[in-house]
């Protein structure tokens, strides 16, 4: 199992598009992926209900974990989503 603590960048926090992206990513790996406020137990990142229920906003610290055969790739992917400004925020692509 891998665990990392990161600061959430997208301005919607874990809502709207970033939340969708997290859930989509979590579902695309075999590993079990969790996300939760730093220092507390995480919730199943594959559940939209659980992820949006956390009420995580931009600037919040979260712990992410991944456990399974592709845990490395899963946690990298999740970290990238949570630390990349939202598409359009910084004018990239177009």
């Amino acid at each position: 199992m891998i665990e990392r603590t990161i600061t959430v960048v997208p301005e919607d926090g874990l809502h709207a598009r970033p939340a969708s992206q997290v859930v989509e990513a979590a579902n695309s790996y075999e590993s079990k992926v969790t996300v939760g406020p730093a220092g507390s137990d995480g919730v199943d990142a594959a559940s939209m209900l659980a992820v949006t229920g956390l009420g995580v906003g931009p600037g919040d610290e979260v712990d992410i974990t991944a456990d399974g055969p592709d845990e490395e790739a899963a946690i990298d992917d999740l970290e990238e989503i949570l630390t990349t400004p939202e598409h359009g925020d910084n004018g990239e692509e177009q």
Partner: protein
Amino acid sequence: MTVDETQSTPESVSGVSVTPLSGLGTVRWYRPEGHPSPEDASAGSPEEEQQRFDDARQLARDELERERERTAERVGDEEAAVFDAHLKFLEDPQLIEGIGDEIDAGEAAELAVDRAYGDAIEQFEGMDGLMAERADDLRDIRDRLLRLLSGGERIDLTALPEGTILLAERLTPSDTAQLDPEAVAGFATVTGGRTSHVAIFARSLGIPAIVGAGDDLLNIPEGTAVAVDAENESVVVDPDEEVRERVTAGRDVTVREERVETRDGKEIEVAANIGTTAEIDGAIGQGADGVGLFRTEFLFLDRESPPDEDEQFETYVDALEAFPEGRVVVRTLDIGGDKPIPYLELPEEENPFLGDRGIRRSLGDDAHLFESQLRALLRAAGATDGTLSVMFPLVATVDELTAALDEVDRVAEDLADEGTEYAVPELGVMVETPAAVMMAEEFAERVDFLSIGTNDLAQYVMAADRENDAVAHLHNPQQPAVLRAIRRSVEAAHEHGAWIGMCGEMAGDPASTELLVGLGLDELSMSAVTVPAVKANITEIDSTDAAAVADQALTAATKQHVTDTIDQ
């Protein structure tokens, strides 16, 4: 399906036929919202219920993906993202598991969905801001699932199979605008009247339609063969051979592309009313000489922000180029509290039809929209060879008219200063209010033309709501009071060298053509579908005879006398 208390299918349901067209086809129900109470669902075996839930979820996924695609195309990726979130909730393992548990405990799929989503909604509701919005998302998905479980698949109105007869409680103007006249053989609605917006759209698109059919319509099941019978103003269930032949018999009125005149050589312009450029092809196909009423408000509906000057410019140029020989009469934005436009913050009014609307808003809160619309119009007039005419809606005072004309001058000066190509179009006034009728001389002195909107004129002269079936006998243009208002306006226009047209539904009623020619109207504008019949009538009319009919109708004291005079 169980047979308890189910009403038997009626043989036919009568309503109001709003086009002269009939059609034959198969019933598809359009139920955009609503589902039976989940408490009423009876449960099958857990396996069956699980299967029903899985099927509903699959359908919901298909719908959401389609809606996401369409929203991304028409509105933007940002707005489409909400459907991604919905898809994620739909596939949420916690929700799916919770529903599975309820089903295993012997509940119907409906109740299982209602409970599992209900719990989640409750959790989110207690939270603030963004979290409360998630409760709305969950409610949407729950309602979608419940609708699909009750068999109410939301159908894509733009892609109905050929031979569809669409039945609905009601259709909004934007619903109706999506219908493809090639595929839709007709539609019928529980609500609505002859001059309601859905009726106007049906005529524009040339779709057979029965409105105001009442609750009996609800008892016609999905998949039934039905005929929309314009002659008997009814929806006929399982039509026999005789009905089938009659409703499919030729729609063979000859289309005349050329301009027409009366037997004694008086030319009458016959034009089409349109709301969008999508209707132009239909208008040309029916032989319209031009556009007599372009209702520009449809450019502003169903979107997140107003169309900008360039977008409008393109639209007006398209319309003008479609009729190089004819005239295109554009009505400036006619919006009021009855049409919800999110970005305009229209006031809630007790009486939107007597409120802040039409030219009143254009000179007030919507002055910026009026300016950009006028700029687009003047530029379009300068960019093409077609004849553009611009008219103002709901003018009641000379002051309003003067202010509108001043605004045109100001916009023209601005364009000249900028060095932008433009031309000042013909300018006119809609005659829709008793005030406009009384001031018609003063208006006609100041403009090039008047155009009578009979639907609103009848509504305001008779103080009878055009959407209210209970007063339908009053908001009728054949009421003597309305007829006299028309005559007065025609005389005022001609006295001051202005031309005068009519763009209400009366203009497209073939039974009224002789009367209108006799009253002296120079132009008639109508739903495209009635152009051929009116053109044919004009060629049969002698204008001296017509004048006599009009004179006699004007002496009538009752609507019945007017009708009798016309029918003679």
